[in-house]
């Protein structure tokens, strides 16, 4: 800071001074120390300072919040204009996230390098729009066809351009999302969700897809969807409302059962539901959705079963509930790591 003699300053002079402004608008230790000491030194100046402060703090402006629909619409449009030379990257990296892509890459490798070369030569520019959400954040997306997607925390959705000429509507999901797909007249443009190894063909409907851990799980709320393993386009499984299907790539099997769908879509309203869930699984969910690490001092804790319905929940609420339910100690190790011990 350059040295200035403030003793002759009028209120107006103070207002034009950057250091003074910094103190009023962004007080920190350094500027507070200076200005407090200065006022002690020149008590007769306190009134002038107060006047200047009043003026500055009177400057309030209405904040115009950009509507989420506009934000997404423009972002979607910008994607179509991106230079194909710009490599596609996600805003965040999670190693297991890309398992699906890696597997696809290995498969392509088996088909031969020639095929790969051809694929890259003929591949159209990636014009997919990417929507991402932060840890702990749910985002409501309005796709160009008026379908609504509620994107769960720390998730990403890529979408092809759904414009006039498009023959299909395709999206790729990492993480979790609830879909309310707009039915297309005469089913002219099918809507497909790609989740890891699974393709979900939508026939106008509401359903939840969870693909946080590379084991895509689909819960159908209403309507009809058909699932297909995407590498081997063989069996096509048609789901009924109220069903849950999880695909396990390691043994190429579908697990199918009847569920109450509310439990699986409660996250849309920031409610977390646990039903006889192991603490190991709870920790994994908190890691996916809030980016935190939960460590257990005692491995027997991992198998403890936890049941709770937590409204307006985030990781802190869940951890506090666990602490009370099992009478355990909870310690925050650093910003993102928590230790649970008996």
């Amino acid at each position, binding site marked *: 800071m350059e040295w200035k003699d403030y003793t002759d300053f009028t209120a107006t002079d103070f207002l034009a001074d950057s250091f003074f402004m910094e103190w009023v608008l962004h007080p920190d230790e350094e500027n507070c120390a200076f200005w407090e000491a200065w006022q002690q030194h020149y008590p007769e100046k306190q009134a002038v300072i107060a006047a200047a*402060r009043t003026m500055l703090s009177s400057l*309030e402006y209405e904040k115009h*919040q950009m509507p989420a629909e506009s934000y997404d619409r*423009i972002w979607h449009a910008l994607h179509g*204009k991106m230079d194909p030379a710009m490599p596609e990257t996600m805003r965040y990296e999670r190693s297991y996230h890309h398992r699906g892509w890696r597997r696809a890459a290995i498969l392509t490798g088996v088909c031969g390098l020639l095929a790969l070369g051809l694929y890259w030569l003929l591949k159209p520019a990636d014009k997919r729009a990417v929507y991402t959400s932060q840890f702990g954040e749910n985002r409501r997306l309005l796709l160009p066809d008026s379908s609504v997607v509620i994107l769960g925390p720390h998730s990403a959705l890529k979408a092809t351009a759904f414009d006039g000429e498009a023959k299909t509507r395709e999206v790729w999901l990492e993480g979790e999302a609830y879909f309310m797909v707009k039915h297309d007249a005469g089913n002219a443009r099918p809507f497909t969700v790609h989740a890891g190894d699974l393709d979900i063909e939508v026939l106008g409907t509401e359903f939840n897809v969870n693909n946080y851990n590379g084991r895509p799980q689909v819960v159908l709320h209403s309507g009809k969807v058909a699932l297909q393993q995407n590498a081997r386009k063989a069996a096509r499984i048609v789901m009924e409302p109220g069903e849950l299907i999880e695909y396990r790539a390691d043994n190429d099997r579908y697990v199918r059962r009847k569920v109450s769908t509310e439990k699986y879509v409660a996250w849309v309203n920031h409610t977390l539901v646990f039903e006889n869930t192991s603490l190991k699984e709870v920790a994994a969910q908190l890691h996916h959705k809030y980016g935190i690490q939960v460590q257990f001092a005692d491995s027997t804790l991992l198998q403890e079963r936890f049941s709770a319905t937590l409204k307006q929940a985030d990781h802190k609420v869940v951890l506090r509930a666990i602490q009370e339910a099992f009478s355990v100690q909870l310690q925050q190790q650093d910003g993102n790591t928590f230790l649970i011990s008996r």
Partner: protein
Amino acid sequence: MAIQSGEGHAANWQHFLGGSREAFAALYASFAPLLYNYGCKECADRRLVEDCIQDVFEYLLAHRAQLSPVTNVKAYLLKAYRRALLRKISNMRKNIPVALTDEARFEIVISPESHLIGQQSSLHRREKVAAALNALPPRMKEALFLRFYEDLSFEDIAAIMEIDQKSVYKMIYKAFDKLRRQLADFPLWALLYCLLLKP
């Protein structure tokens, strides 16, 4: 959203020039809402405000190879955006009248929070100050907004508003001088009261 420092934006800008979509996405996330807020203060036509945001970012994508590094991304984008918006407004005015915010441009408001926390006397004074400020010409109010809300230097404001730095300084000084006179008739105790109230 995480608050990003000026250096963070400059680094994102640099990575975007190098072809990173990720950096472009970060710039969009940081500045589209900021430009929207600014645009709404300049012009009441939301469609126009949004179209210009798209134009500015499309321009960046199309001219990535020709763009050079910038230190203050916020000032750069505000300048480009203001130009795009004013050009569009003047083009449209030739054909059909555009709903401009005009007198209400860069209006100073008293937030509901200050109604809640403010003592009656302090609130009254702030209303008086706001009224005095709102009577200033829109350009003066715009300079105040850029200086005190967007935290930009006199140099950046001069570049954005396409006037010389001296005029910016003069405008802001004049605005405050007017305020000072407005406030001159307040008793000392009231001013001290305000000092104690404000953090």
